């Protein structure tokens, strides 16, 4: 993981002052096809929040052992400064599986609601 000193800096439109960007991790498993759409949504949310999408740390999970070591609840998973942007659904398997998300309108989806991604980044930046 990069140290905080190596993180890129973002600029707040509100105060025009530099601030340390959060570390944004994207964990994924190739067998679950939703990762591509989720990564595109995450990149868009990064731009919307004034963050550089190139700074996303992408971590592919390729084995159950790797998934367990990473505490991987399913694909895709997005962490901001180590915190998952959503609570894993109860009663669902973990590891190398497609992860269940709930959209804001209550629909089940294999990727997080883009608004939740955007707001998770914004909330971290406002802390």
């Amino acid at each position, binding site marked *: 993981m990069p140290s905080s000193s190596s993180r890129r800096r973002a600029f707040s439109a509100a105060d025009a002052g530099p601030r340390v960007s959060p570390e944004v991790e994207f964990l994924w498993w190739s067998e679950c*096809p*939703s990762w591509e*759409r989720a990564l595109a949504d995450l990149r868009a949310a990064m731009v919307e929040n004034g963050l550089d999408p190139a700074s996303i740390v992408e971590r592919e999970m390729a084995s159950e052992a790797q998934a367990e070591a990473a505490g991987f609840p399913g694909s895709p998973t997005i962490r901001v400064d180590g915190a998952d942007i959503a609570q894993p659904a109860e009663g669902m398997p973990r590891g190398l*599986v*497609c992860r269940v*998300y709930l959209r804001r309108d209550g*629909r*089940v*989806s294999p990727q997080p609601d883009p608004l939740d991604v955007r707001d998770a980044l914004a909330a971290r930046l406002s802390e």
Partner: protein
Amino acid sequence: MSIELGDTAPGFELPGTDGADHPLEAGGAKATVVYWTCNHCPYALAWHDRLLDVARDYADRGVRVLAVNSNDPDRYPADSFEAMSERVEGEGGWPHPFLHDASQEVAQAWGAEKTPHVFVLDGDLSLRYEGAPDSDHDDPTLGAEWLREALDAVLAGEQPERSRTPAVGCGVKWKP
């Protein structure tokens, strides 16, 4: 291995959550839909209501619908027969049977690879469509339109224009 368009689908008889055994061939159906699904896959869950709507909408047109779960329940307890039964009961019942392929032999014989994975058979149980319900799991307004198009063609005695589409979803969870 997968069945080819025009092939007669392999027969089966599988237990359902309703306590009955359900054969593929029940007689009298003008078309039969068999789709693989499960309890834990977000793709299967996202398309679930659309597939149930198809079963309801086509029931009086001679279409029989069967859902099959073949996932390994040892590694995925959420897909056990007990969990299947609890789910159907918790949802107030489904308009079609939910069958358990515990040995996974039916999934292997049919070449089912994903949840969901949809197969449409004509009145002679020959394969006429295979693939996804529609083009986007995240767009419920699509209403399983590929499946409906296939059923409309089969009921009209025609081959669906779109006969195969990529099944999109979670892989069937095979036993080690």
